[in-house]
């Protein structure tokens, strides 16, 4: 591991932290355009976060330390995840400490703490949100894992950089199994990031909300960290998607950090396109009832399993 490796690692994390709110802003803007509303500023998320940081934190009387610790843990987990997913370069020292399975584990860690914190206050909405979130999670996580396994069967490695290396430079460019995996992944990431059709981030309508219901009791800096973490999560999922299905352009190991910087514009471009796609999906599809969610995610899960099967059948 060279010095530059660590440097590119840091650069990548920094980029992720910086770009994440921007991506959220971009998606919201696109969605507004598509629904021909007047779009909010691209930088609204940054302002929101800053504003929240300034405010005084209001915490329920019966909140336990878990409640106040959770935002930091979630934020930390997401940052680590950002350090694992190769967005700019595959030369990531930290990725050796945590592979794809660990990545899913980190997401799960964040989710569990979110749910615990939501239950901590003991309000109806909190436990409702926690229940629904875990409910979505117990189907989405396996699906995500199966998607990653499909890729790791191809590259016979579970470390993401390895996967990307293989996928990026391999004779056979086309993997039928990845087609299935791609669809499954899209569905999963919609669910995981609280997007329509599973959840609607822009509502506080109790019957439909999942993610928002867990944030109800949070305010100020805690809320800011959680919003930021959510943005990071979206960013990470996007980067996973890009890394698995559009790996070109990611700098492979051995390059110095300037090269890494040079790969940033391409990333931004890819993310922009991804954001448009996401906004498109959200506009075209309707929010579904909460108990349709298992069908939706079950389908994703089955597709992921199917992807693995196809991979074993066709050896690709």
């Amino acid at each position: 591991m060279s010095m530059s490796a660590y440097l590119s690692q840091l650069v990548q994390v920094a980029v992720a932290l910086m770009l994440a709110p921007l991506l959220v802003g971009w998606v919201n803007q696109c969605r507004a355009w598509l629904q021909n509303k007047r779009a909010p500023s691209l930088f609204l998320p940054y302002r929101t976060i800053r504003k929240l940081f300034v405010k005084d934190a209001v915490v329920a009387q019966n909140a336990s330390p878990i409640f106040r610790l959770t935002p930091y843990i979630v934020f930390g987990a997401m940052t680590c995840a950002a350090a694992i997913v190769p967005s700019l370069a595959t030369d990531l020292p930290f990725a050796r400490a945590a592979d794809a399975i660990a990545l899913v584990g980190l997401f799960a860690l964040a989710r569990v703490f979110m749910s615990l914190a939501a239950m901590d206050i003991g309000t109806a909405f909190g436990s409702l949100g926690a229940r629904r979130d875990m409910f979505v999670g117990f189907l989405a996580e396996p699906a995500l894992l199966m998607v990653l396994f499909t890729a790791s069967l191809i590259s016979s490695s579970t470390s993401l950089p390895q996967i990307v290396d293989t996928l990026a430079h391999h004779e056979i460019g086309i993997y039928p199994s990845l087609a299935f995996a791609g669809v499954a992944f899209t569905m999963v990431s919609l669910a995981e990031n609280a997007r329509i059709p599973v959840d609607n981030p822009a509502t506080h309508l109790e019957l439909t909300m999942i993610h928002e219901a867990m944030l109800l009791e949070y305010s100020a800096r805690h809320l800011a960290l959680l919003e930021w973490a959510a943005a990071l999560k979206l960013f990470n999922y996007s980067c996973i998607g890009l890394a698995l299905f559009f790996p070109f352009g990611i700098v492979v190991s051995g390059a110095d950090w300037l090269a890494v910087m040079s790969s940033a514009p391409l990333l931004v471009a890819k993310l922009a396109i991804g954001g448009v796609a996401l906004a498109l999906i959200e506009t075209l599809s309707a929010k579904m009832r909460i108990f349709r969610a298992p069908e939706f995610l079950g389908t994703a899960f089955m597709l992921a399993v199917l992807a693995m099967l196809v991979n074993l059948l066709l050896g690709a």
Partner: protein
Amino acid sequence: MSAPDLVVGAIVLWLGLGVAGLARPRHLAFVSRVVFPLGAAVGLALAAVALSAISAAPQMRELPLGLPDLPFHVRVDSLSAFFLMLLGAVAAAVSVYSAGYFRSSEGTAPGLVGFQYHAFLAAMALVLVADDAYVFMVAWESMALASYFLVTTEHRIPEIRRAGFLYLLIAHVGALAILLCFGVLQGGSGDYTFAGMRQQSLIGAWPSVAFFLALAGFGAKAGLLPLHVWLPEAHPAAPSPVSALMSAVMLKTAIYGFLRVSFDLLHGQLWWWGVAVLALGLVSALFGVVFAAVQTDMKRLLAYSSIENIGIIAAGIGLCILFRAYDKTLLAAISLTAVLYHCLNHAFFKSLLFLATGSVLHATHERSLGKLGGLIHRMPWVAWLALVGTLAIAGLPPLNGFVSEWLLLQAFLFTPSLPQSFVNMLVPVATAALVLAVALAAYVMVKFYGIVFLGRPRESNLAYAHDAGKLERTALVYLAAGCVLLGIVPVAVIALIDPVNVALVGSSARTGTSAGWLFLAPINADRSSYSPLIVLVVIVAVVLVTIQVVHRLYHGRVRRAPPWDCGFPAQTPRMQDTAEGFGQPIRTVFEPFFRMQRHLPSPFDGKPRYAVRVEDPLWHWLYLPIARGSDVLGRMAGYIQQGRISVYLTYSFFTLIALLLFIQ
């Protein structure tokens, strides 16, 4: 002093302590301040001895007991040493806890409990060192017997008696199956020593008969489907330390026995055995976790989660058999490592959680989740330590549950290298099932922890709950530390386990893990690597940095206010999710698996109460039919005896005639 002598010494000491307790049955102080602590010390000593014996060569001894031509043989090899270490390490904690736990004697006198408890420990230790069929069976059944009496400590409560009866019955039937398995293994040679059985080469269907008899017998004790029904009954019935021991150690002795028979005494293994065990394990895992999700009693919930973990372990064993059948010994070694590692992990976090429920039980006299809540404020020690256990059992990095599941998944990812295409097709499904079970476990544990410790107290009397005493705390801290330690230094632990791999599958799992003490990397670092320590450090670092930065750049001001809850004014604790409520999504998704009886209150009901009972379908599909069948047979047999003497004479007459015709 060789290892066997020391182990036997430990067994004798335990028995002695038990007898000492029996000498002064009603003397609580003596039992709790002398007997149990000494028992804990013995446990630690045993663990230390075993630790040193894992890598040593097998040693055996003969005891001056047993049948005339069959003295008790004891033998300590790496496999038994590993499980002995597990036993000692956990037993020490549970004994310390028990010293503080057993209070006034509601049911059985404390001294008697002490005797049964230590006899239980001694029997388990003897099972692990047994080296011939007879001593194995004696220890095995004594273990069942001791634990039965412990389960029925509160024998005045009918449900507890019922649970104890069911437990002992299934244990006994399972033991008979094991007995017959040994009958096959001795191959008519009349030599019941394990050494003799290793010499036997069985032919034809006999190996399979032996294997499946062993699967049935040990499965019954481990709680594999369909012989699991005793487990969710007996665990809640028993006092919490006993539940902890049963779940953490006794189930592992069953795993030990199965490994002993199928890897050590049987020579070759067939691939379809592996498939069978794998399937059974995964079904058990899913079944267990799904049922755990809908439980409303915290100890039943943990019991079902034990079924799940045993299922995962069994799946690993199945995988290992599969690899071994195609002699891919390295991969077999990896999956075996995962199995043993998970045994160790489960022992630690499950005993931690059961002991935590014990403290909750003592503090609140309440086992039903629907009547708990908010205990983190009343009993912070228990709550925070239980949090560690919860995260560990939910399989979250960087704690220990994650490591073994990670290893197991890695092993699964290697299966495509098997020649059997049918098996290959199986892999994705199996992996999916495993992952699903693990994900559901997280759901279950959030339910458990959130409802017991978080939120607001659902009953007023919870306000008087008190935290656990010093001894209890010590035990809980010890176990929690174990969970963390096992989680962050996997390489060291695997180095510890490795001799067992070499002994059982003839290959070390450490060819790849030699990527330094920091990185766990089976096969090679390119393929996959994981370093929980680094993950932990980084997360903690990020958290601390974030806190610092936020507080420096902005401020750390906090105002306390009543919960907002979308501004809804009149909130009561009853508005929180109950256990039923939290389990409801699972109930709807897995509806077909349950037998549910719902009681929906009418909309005009002044005090509406919603009740749902979820029953184990296997009762209705398997056990009740058997019971009815035997009852019918009994009635038919009853017709033989009509009380009329001439009928009886006719029986004798026809017996005579029949025999005379027979010899014609």
